[in-house]
């Protein structure tokens, strides 16, 4: 076997190995899935609008704050069913079939005018929740 062939084999092997080199997955940077509890991407919920309505509960008048929120489903890795958890770590939430066109309305009762109300919203499935963000609205 000539020296040239030997050299070609070695150089080819090294080049091939260098070209195919791949690193491990860095778990610290693995936070792009909205269903990941460690999600750190773009906000999944966008506040659209709010309104303060007066209602009578057990004969007592009070004010309720309703906020309309959009669920940014385009951030999901694929089209899927989901749940939205409001101020909760686990348990059943609002199913996606109850959120037409990704538009969700959340309410907080007995608010005072000028009071800011925040909700912690998270997406999830099977009673477990992943990423989310806070949405705030101010009562009138």
């Amino acid at each position: 076997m000539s020296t040239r062939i030997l050299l070609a084999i070695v150089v080819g092997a090294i080049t091939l190995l260098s070209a195919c080199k791949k690193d491990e997955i860095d778990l610290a940077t693995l936070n792009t899935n909205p269903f990941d509890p460690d999600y750190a991407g773009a906000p999944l919920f966008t506040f659209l609008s709010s309104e303060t309505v007066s209602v009578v509960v057990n004969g007592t008048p009070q004010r309720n704050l309703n906020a309309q929120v959009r669920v940014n489903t385009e951030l999901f890795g694929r089209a899927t069913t989901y749940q939205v958890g409001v101020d909760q770590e686990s348990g059943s939430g609002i199913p996606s079939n109850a959120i037409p066109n990704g538009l969700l309305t959340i309410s907080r009762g007995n608010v005072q005018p000028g009071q800011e109300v925040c909700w912690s919203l998270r997406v999830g499935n099977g009673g477990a929740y992943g990423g989310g963000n806070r949405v705030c609205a101010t009562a009138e």
Partner: protein
Amino acid sequence: MRTLPIIATSNGGTASSMWEATCSVRMQFRAMRTITLLFTFAAVLLSRAQNTGTLRLLVDPGHNFEFIVDKKFRMQQREIKLTEGLHDMSLWAPERMVVDTMVFVVADRTSDLVVRLPFSPEYVTYRKEIARYQQKKRWTRAAPLLVLAGGLTWTAVSAMQYGKAKDVLDADRENYTINADPRAIEALKAETIPAANKELKNARTQVYLASGFSVVSAAAAWYFIHRTNTWQRPLFEDKQKVKFDGLAWMPGRDGGLFMAGLTINLSK
């Protein structure tokens, strides 16, 4: 030739004397004829004594043998005409021993001389040395090449395992991207991906080790191949040829050796 005397007489006695002279001449003529016949017979006998016979040489090896007749005439042919009688034959062929033998050639007949020239001890030794040399050279070259082949195989297997580990990791990465189950994602990040990471790291270490081994093997193969190229091949010194020739050129490492043989017969 002697001159016969003629005696002349006056009383007729001259005739008798003439008769005697005639008889003497006849006898001398007969003697001359007898001598001539004897010479002729001797010449015929001598010519029969110079008659030749053919000697056919059936020698192994048959294609390149040479011979010397009566230690004088060097020839290279399969048949030879020799005078009748005993002749000294020295036969030789390259790589064979010189064989000396006596041959009796019969006139007007073809005789066969069947000889098998044995291999010379120098050639037998040379064959053993060259076989040993070739075997050593072959193994010195083949062993590092075999090791290199093993190293390349190891590298290929490691690279395949590395590829599989990468595929598993890519599948895990894809699974993470599209998964919509937070619990499954937690399990993926806590167990599956770390295990795949570890597998990839091990596979990569194997690839590095195998590649390094292959490189070292290739260097060793290159070194040994070049080193064996500088080895001196055993040379065959045909001492029997020197003996046969008495004058020979012996090729050698530094150009060769010119050998001359000189024989002085001190008995004369």
